[in-house]
């Protein structure tokens, strides 16, 4: 357990280092003199003078060798001093904290919805493998998995927002706005979790303990709830860990598509505007969100399946 948490912590540190190094590279490769640019960001373009730029250069140590500037950059990162946005001038921390909230709501909503859709269908298919329902589900999940998020999103917008006019296509605020982005992410997740649940159900139903439970006269309902559910849950939750990559990548694309004011949307905008502190802040938040979600999956697995605890 401690080893596991230590590993995840190490991963978080690696995320910070990697993001820090990449954004430092991004900063260094921007055209023009960084001192003038930062001075312009601080005092406005009309107020920039050589003196102001030199003051910034001395204050931020921009005249130092690259290695020192890099260490200072990482040092700022380590103390969570993310600086100010070059575009809006607001502290990055504030903007990121705000965006992170809506992203997390979207991600959790998607995972919850996928659990409502995927595993129950998978279990139903797994209890009767080879049936018409099972085959239909296989076809459906294969096609859903072959569709990238943004295509799925576009198709859902065209069907539900443009043609049927049931829900708004983009924006944020009301519950109706959350329907399409959540559904887009959840469908992709559910396609996989239903397959995992189906395969797990077949394994469990064919196992000796399941057969024994039936033999000793348990009703199929109590057999399933007592012996089936938890054992099917383990691979489904484990696979959720693998799918987190899909979820995080989906968040970037889906937020951009639906104009959802989250961290992915913020990251893409920061990249387009070349707002380096915001790129760093948002990328860091996404990377850390990935690590935290992974840790949560580990903990959930730990709770569902006590067998691993002693190891």
């Amino acid at each position: 357990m401690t080893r596991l948490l230590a590993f995840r912590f190490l991963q978080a540190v690696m995320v910070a280092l990697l993001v820090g190094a990449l954004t430092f590279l991004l900063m260094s490769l921007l055209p023009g003199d960084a001192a003038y640019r930062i001075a312009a960001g601080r005092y406005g373009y009309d107020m920039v003078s050589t003196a102001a730029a030199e003051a910034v250069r001395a204050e931020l140590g921009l005249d130092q060798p690259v290695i020192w500037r890099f260490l200072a950059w990482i040092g700022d990162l380590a103390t969570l001093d993310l600086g100010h946005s070059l575009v809006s001038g607001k502290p990055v921390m504030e903007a990121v904290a705000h965006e992170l909230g809506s992203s997390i709501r979207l991600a959790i909503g998607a995972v919850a919805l996928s659990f409502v859709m995927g595993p129950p269908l998978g279990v139903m298919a797994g209890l009767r493998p080879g049936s018409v329902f099972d085959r239909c589900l296989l076809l459906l999940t294969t096609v859903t998995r072959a569709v990238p998020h943004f295509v799925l999103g576009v198709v859902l917008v065209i069907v539900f927002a443009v043609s049927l006019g049931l829900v708004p296509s983009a924006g944020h605020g009301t519950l109706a706005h959350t329907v399409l982005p959540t559904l887009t992410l959840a469908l992709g997740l559910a396609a996989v979790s239903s397959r995992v649940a189906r395969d797990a159900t077949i394994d469990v139903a064919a196992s000796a303990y399941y057969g024994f439970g039936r033999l000793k006269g348990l009703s199929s309902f109590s057999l399933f709830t007592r012996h089936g559910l938890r054992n099917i849950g383990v691979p489904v939750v484990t696979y959720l860990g693998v799918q987190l990559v899909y979820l995080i990548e989906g968040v970037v694309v889906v937020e951009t598509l639906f104009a959802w004011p989250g961290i992915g949307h913020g990251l893409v905008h920061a990249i387009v505007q070349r707002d380096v502190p915001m790129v760093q802040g948002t990328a860091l938040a996404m990377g850390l969100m990935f690590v935290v979600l992974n840790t949560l999956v580990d903990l959930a697995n730990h709770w569902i399946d006590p067998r691993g605890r002693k190891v």
Partner: protein
Amino acid sequence: MNLETVAVNTAPPAQVTSRLWGIGLFLLLVLFAIAVPLLWQVDIAKQDYTAILSGPAEAHPLGTDHLGRDMLARLAAAVRLSLGLALVSVMTAAVPGVLLGVVAAWKGGAVDKLLGLLSEMFLALPGLLLVLLIVAIFPGSFLALYGAVSLVLWIEYFRMTRALSRTVLASPAVSASRLLGFGPLYIIRRHLWPELSPVLMTIAAFGAASAIMAIAALGFISVGVRPPTAELGLMITELLPYYAEAPIVIALPILVILLIILSLMLIAGGRKR
């Protein structure tokens, strides 16, 4: 072995048939990408002002987009770009991935630990995020996109090769070969490669699928390749506002991207979900 078991063993299981379907579909797409520019020599940037968002017609078999550009030529160019970039990235990623994987399993100890740590470091960040950051550093650069995708893809090769090589190298068969005095090259060719090659095919197909999705996703959010390049994701973004006027025109890139990913998924088979 009697005749019946031979017949059972040679009958293609479901997975092989679906893989054949995938390969067939993939070859058709490659043929489309190669044959169209040879047979249909229309410039992808040439505008036809008399046909804006037109449906299929004689002059434009698949219609035109919002700027009057020929969709057939653009789709073929987009498929060529996606498949080309994906194949090159997959190949580039395979070489260091497999080599480092074998080295890590062979040497063990500190080398194995160090390489493992390196791969963990890249895994800590979701692939698309890494690609996005690298593309941000070199905006509009084709080479950066290719490098970033390869940088993400090598990890899967490395991890798979390392795990498989470890079990194979620890097997009695390899110890026997070593005792007989065979060198590393023989062991790699005779023991490792037969175990690795089928798995590598699966990883390559999955890698190509995720590369194509990443390129298209970047194009879609207007960070990847720039207009007027014909790219599937970019085409979908560009055509989205004209859905009401020309639903068929936007359906084309969507259908094409679906077919590409589906064919690669079928080739990869049901090993990984």
